[in-house]
Structure formats: structure tokens, C-alpha cells
């Protein structure tokens, strides 16, 4: 029954939802081959695929899929509440994106193409694995939660995507400002890719900041998801959002 439901939800959302992260990483991989061909080290770009591209892709998809269903009015009459269906879909999309990211990071590690500057060489393998996980998991959850909240709050799926995309580009364009302004670190989403580093290891004084940044992102993401879950209870808002677009 449980697996039937998952299969049914995947069919309802369409394969495009689950294929997008795979296509994103395939595109990143192909572009990396081009970089290798022109004698440019691709590891940082591959890391950007995990840290920056999968999160924004998942964020935009969740912000689009969760607030609206073609049969929303019917869904709202069912005994199973819509927020539970929407949350199940969000979890499925997140699991798919995380699965692709995990698989990709494993492949990069095996090919020695990984770029994880926050490395503590003396740490055990599991701790190293968690470190690598934090690189993409924190922005993935943050972007997904933020886009869900914005879409529901503004009752517009497009608005969620637009604000998230602007924030994403803003992080790249104003990275020096973000790095220099310490109180902006809680919204500094992509430090591994964007922080200019001479060596592949962060200076010791920045490692603590990096961990703090990850915890803050995860904490904020949790708040976003709780807010989103609460807003998904607002059936009237969901219906208005569907008609306003």
C-alpha cells in the first residue's frame, strides 16, 4: 500500500520532477568534460553542481509542485488532508534530489574529483562523509523550505521561483559582501563554491564559522518547513492561490 502510494504520487507529479536533478547533474558532468578538455580543473565546478544547482532546482520544483494540484478542489474534500499529500510529495522530491547528490558525490570521491575544502584529515571516515554531506544538504533543505514558504505566502508559484532565483544570483554577485559581513553568514548558502580559497583547506578560524553556518541553515530550513506545513493547512489560501495565478 505504502509503495503503491509512492508509485502513484510519482506518476501524478510526472517523471520530469524526478528526472530534473538527474538531468542537472548530467549537464554539469558534460560541461565538466568540456572544462577538462580545455585544461581547466573541473572539481570546483562539479562541487558547484552539488552545492548550488541541485538545491535551486529542488527549491523551484517544490515551490511549484506543492502549493497546487490540478485536482486541488477535489483533494480538499478528501478525508486525507492535502497538507499530508503535499508533504509526501516534498519528501519524495527531496529524497530524489538528495539521492542524486549523494550518488554524484560518491562518484566524484571515487574519481578523486571532489572539492570539499573543509577537510579535517585526522577525522574518521564517517565524520568526513558527514562533512561532505553538509556541503549540499544544508543549501538543499534551505532552498526547498524557502521556496515553499514564499510560494505559499505570496500565493504564487512563480513568485517563489523568482525570489529564490534572485537570491541565488545575488549570492554569487555579492559574495564578497556576504563573506565580509559576518552577520550575513546565516544566509550565505554556498561557501564551499563561492569563498575564494588559496588552498583546498579552510583556515582553522573559518572552520568553526563554516559549521555554525551549516547549523544555522539547517535550523532556518526546519523553521521554513514548519511554516510551510502550517500554511498548507490553509485550504482557502491554496484555492485562492490557484485562481490568482
Amino acid at each position, binding site marked *: 500500500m505504502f509503495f503503491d502510494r509512492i508509485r502513484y504520487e510519482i506518476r501524478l507529479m510526472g517523471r*520530469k520532477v524526478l528526472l*530534473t536533478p538527474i538531468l*542537472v547533474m548530467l549537464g554539469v558532468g558534460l560541461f565538466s568534460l*568540456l*572544462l577538462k578538455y*580545455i585544461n*581547466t580543473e573541473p572539481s570546483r*565546478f562539479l562541487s558547484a553542481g552539488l552545492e548550488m*544547482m541541485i538545491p*535551486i*532546482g529542488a527549491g*523551484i*520544483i517544490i*515551490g*511549484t*509542485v506543492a502549493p497546487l494540484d490540478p485536482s486541488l478542489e477535489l483533494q480538499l474534500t478528501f478525508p486525507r488532508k492535502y497538507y499530508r499529500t503535499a508533504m509526501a510529495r516534498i519528501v519524495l522530491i527531496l529524497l530524489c534530489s538528495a539521492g542524486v547528490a549523494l550518488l554524484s558525490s560518491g562518484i566524484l570521491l571515487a574519481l578523486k574529483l571532489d572539492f570539499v575544502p573543509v577537510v579535517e584529515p585526522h577525522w574518521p571516515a564517517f565524520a568526513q562523509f558527514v562533512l561532505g554531506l553538509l556541503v549540499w544538504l544544508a543549501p538543499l533543505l534551505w532552498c526547498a523550505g524557502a521556496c515553499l514558504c*514564499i510560494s505559499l505566502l*505570496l*500565493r*504564487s*508559484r*512563480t*513568485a517563489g*521561483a*523568482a*525570489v529564490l*532565483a*534572485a*537570491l*541565488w*544570483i*545575488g549570492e*554569487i*554577485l*555579492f559574495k*564578497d*559582501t556576504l563573506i*565580509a*559581513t559576518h552577520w*550575513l553568514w546565516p544566509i550565505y548558502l554556498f561557501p564551499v563554491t563561492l569563498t575564494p580559497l588559496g588552498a583546498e583547506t579552510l583556515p582553522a578560524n573559518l572552520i568553526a564559522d563554516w559549521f555554525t553556518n551549516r547549523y544555522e541553515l539547517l535550523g532556518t530550513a526546519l523553521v521554513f518547513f514548519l511554516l510551510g506545513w502550517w500554511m498548507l493547512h490553509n485550504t482557502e489560501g491554496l484555492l485562492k492561490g490557484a485562481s*490568482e*495565478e
Partner: protein
Amino acid sequence: MNQFAVFAGAARYEFWMQIRRRALWITMTLIALLLVGLIGRTQGAQDTLTHLGRFSLKTVVVYWTNFISYLLPIGFGALLADRLPRDRRTKVEELFLSMPGSLSSRIFGKYLGAGLATLIPIFAFYLLGVGVIVAETHNLMAIPLAIEAFSAIILPGLFFVGGFSIACTAFLWTPLYQFLFAGYWFWGNIKIRNVPAIFDYIPGLRPMGSQISLGLFGVYASGNPLLSATPLEGLESLLLLVGLGLLAVFALCQGLKWYQAQQ
């Protein structure tokens, strides 16, 4: 049937539909606030925009225009991206197809009407900044200069973005397009180390307007690999962006006509 009337009617209808969208105003306000917040903490921008007396009027106005073209076109593209799929979602497409008005007039009307409405919050925010410049410098010449800079630097990029946002969503899933668009805005405007970018091969294809800004006004705001551009190169970029935007909509019309003929 008079096709101009169809075009004007579609443009008028799309304009009012878009301008009344709450999401349009809130999205643009949020992006504008994000931009102001980030500019306020950026050293080079602070110097130019807060010490207006030290720089020429042209430098300040063009600087401000460049900042606008950093993030607000992303909102422009994303908010236009759902206009064509909306017709399909609300099942009015079949109704439109049964009407005597030509498809091209309707699509170009949509492009112009929705684009113009989405432009208004951007222009309003831009004018706010120009108002501050006028108040600080006591120089009314900032207004015509600002209109000139806006028309030359921002509008061509918006033509380009709008054209592709309308056209690509005819065959691409809207969220996928929005993701690709965000990626393109990054890759198509900013040089990252020695990663090849599209403007390495087509120099004028910089929708943020850096080549136009440098070529026609001699000023560009950010640390940009483009060190110089001649007025001719600026003009070339302007024409290329406008031309490609219109070409995308034209190709969409032809593609949809072909698709209809196949059915």
C-alpha cells in the same frame, strides 16, 4: 479580421491581467529590497551612490542602471514564464484557436502587454533611485539621462529575456525553464575564472547590458572581465539582444502554427 485589433486587444488584456497580479508587485519589491540590502553593503557601490558629488552625473546614473539590471530581470523573466502555460492550464487555448484572430497577433500581444506590465515595477523602482540622485545633486538633467540609460541598457536585455521566457515555456516545463534561466543569467553574464561563457564566443550576448553600458556610456558597475567596448560594439549588443528576443517570439509563432497544422 483586423490583426492589429487582435494584437492591441491581446496586449491590453495581458497588460491588465499582469499588472493586477499581487505576486508581480510583491516579487519585484522583495527582489528590489534584496538588491538595496546587498548594494548597501558593497564598498564600490556605496562610494558611488552615497558620495554623489565625487562622480560625474553620467557615472552615477549609469551605475544605478547597472545595479537594476543585476537582479530585477530575473523577476521579469520568471513572471513572464508562466503566461503561455497559463492559457493551457485554464483551458482557454482551444478557445483562442477557434477564433478568427491570428496566432501571431495574439502571441506578440501577450509578449508586449505582459512585458510592459512587468516592466512597470522595475521602472518605478528605478525612478525612486533617480529621484534620490536628483535630490542629492540638484541636477534635473539626471532624468533624461536616466531614461536614456534605462532604454539603452535595461530594455534590450528585457526584450531578450521576455522573448525567451514566452517562447521556451511552450515546450519546456515552467520550473525547469526558471531553473535554466537562473543558471543562464549567471553563466551568460558573469565570467568565472577561466570557465568558458557564451559571451566569449558571441561578445554582444550579455543581457545584463555590460557591453552596452561600456560601449555607449563608458561606465560599468562591477568587477567585469570586459574592460572596454566601442560605441559600435555597444550598439551591436543592443541590436542583438532586441533582435534575438523578437526572433524567439517569431519562432514560437511559427512553431505553434506548424504544430497546429500537424494536428
